[in-house]
């Protein structure tokens, strides 16, 4: 490879290196990605978030606790989801876990996965929690727009 070719390749890498942190910052703002991750050089720019997710059972219009034994495989997957969600924010949905749970319990009408994210609000400096609900109904069940707990 000639010196000039190397120089050109290097120039492209450098431009990417300069531009990417701006894109990464935009991702943190729009999708709650962790500033620490994905090479935006935002380590220690914000306190680490804490993600806790839980599963609820949907029956008709009501939502109840998921009081069933959960296989180790699904539990491990759930743990992994919580850890990955801290890094990837809203870009990571619990769709695959929901499919696994619905497959494991054929009698379920549907489930709701509540993902709670705790963080320090930069305006008030208080700990707040944001929750996002993901509802998954079996195909032959009637989906409820807003199940009540």
């Amino acid at each position, binding site marked *: 490879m000639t010196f000039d070719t190397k120089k050109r390749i290097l120039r492209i890498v450098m431009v990417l290196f300069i531009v990417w*942190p701006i894109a990464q910052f935009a991702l943190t703002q729009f999708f709650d990605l962790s500033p620490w991750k994905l090479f935006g050089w*935002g380590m220690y720019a914000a306190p680490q978030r*804490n993600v806790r997710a839980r599963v609820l059972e949907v029956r008709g219009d009501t939502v109840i606790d998921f009081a069933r034994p959960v296989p180790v495989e699904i539990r491990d997957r759930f743990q992994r989801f919580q850890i990955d969600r801290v890094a990837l924010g809203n870009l990571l949905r619990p769709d695959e876990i929901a499919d696994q749970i619905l497959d494991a319990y054929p009698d379920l009408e549907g489930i709701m996965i509540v993902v709670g994210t*705790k963080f320090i609000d930069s305006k008030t*400096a*208080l700990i707040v929690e944001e929750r996002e609900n993901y509802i998954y109904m079996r195909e032959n069940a009637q989906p409820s727009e807003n199940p009540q707990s």
Partner: protein
Amino acid sequence: MQLAGGDDPETRGSKLRAFLIILAIHTVAEFWRIALDARDAALDANQPVPWWFWPGILVPGIATALAIVPRTRRWGFALWTAVAVALHVYFFPHAGNHLLLMLLFLAMGAFFDWRDEREQELMLQSVKWLIAIVFFYSGIQKLLHGYYFRGELFAYYISIRDNYEYFFQFITPASEIARMKAFTGAVGEGPYTLDAPLALLASNATYILEIVLPIFLLIPRTRFAATILTAVSFVLIQIAARELFFFGLYMNGLFLFFRRDVNRYAIPVFILYYVWLLLMQLHLIPEIWFG
């Protein structure tokens, strides 16, 4: 690119060689730490040691041996680059930022011919640019996310980590530290802010220095002073943050801002530093710095 030039032509080759040797030593130490960490975590959880533990010890050893010998140096860095890419894939999305910096340095070690004078110059300039850009964006990110104006981030870390308490006890009243330590992380708790003037100064100086110093690193007239100030600020940051492997990697790059091959004389210091870190990882000496 030339903005980061200005190396002494007579010692340029020696400076780059020293950088590459320290990089190879850093990388093997870091990879061994990762493998030992994974083994310890598995043993603590009564789980089998990961399958990649022994390859994780052997392959880095071979890569570093190749990278240190001049004739096989570029092959060593090529192997390192492959291993580092595999590590990024394996840990996605959790690979730390400094692993990317390390990967880029390793890739440059394979990409450039360290014996060719023009390539030496280009590689030194590139590494210095990366060092400046990383520092600059660290400051910009802190500014944009807004957790430093009232000491929010430091207040949070004082509440959860003893090493931050250790650093801030010198500049923050005990009552304020006690208030932070009383927090349990429950929703509604706070405010996570510091009132002590010196603590606020430290918090705001963090991002200001990280934004300003890289600019002065690139200006030839201010380069020497900026290099010293950056090194001092990095040492101070490590008293609280204790990112000791990142510290080693970054200091290796920072040394390149000196006009002459100062880093050549620092090789034994770097070797001792990494031996010390590994001995701590192996629990053969007390973990005095990890808090």
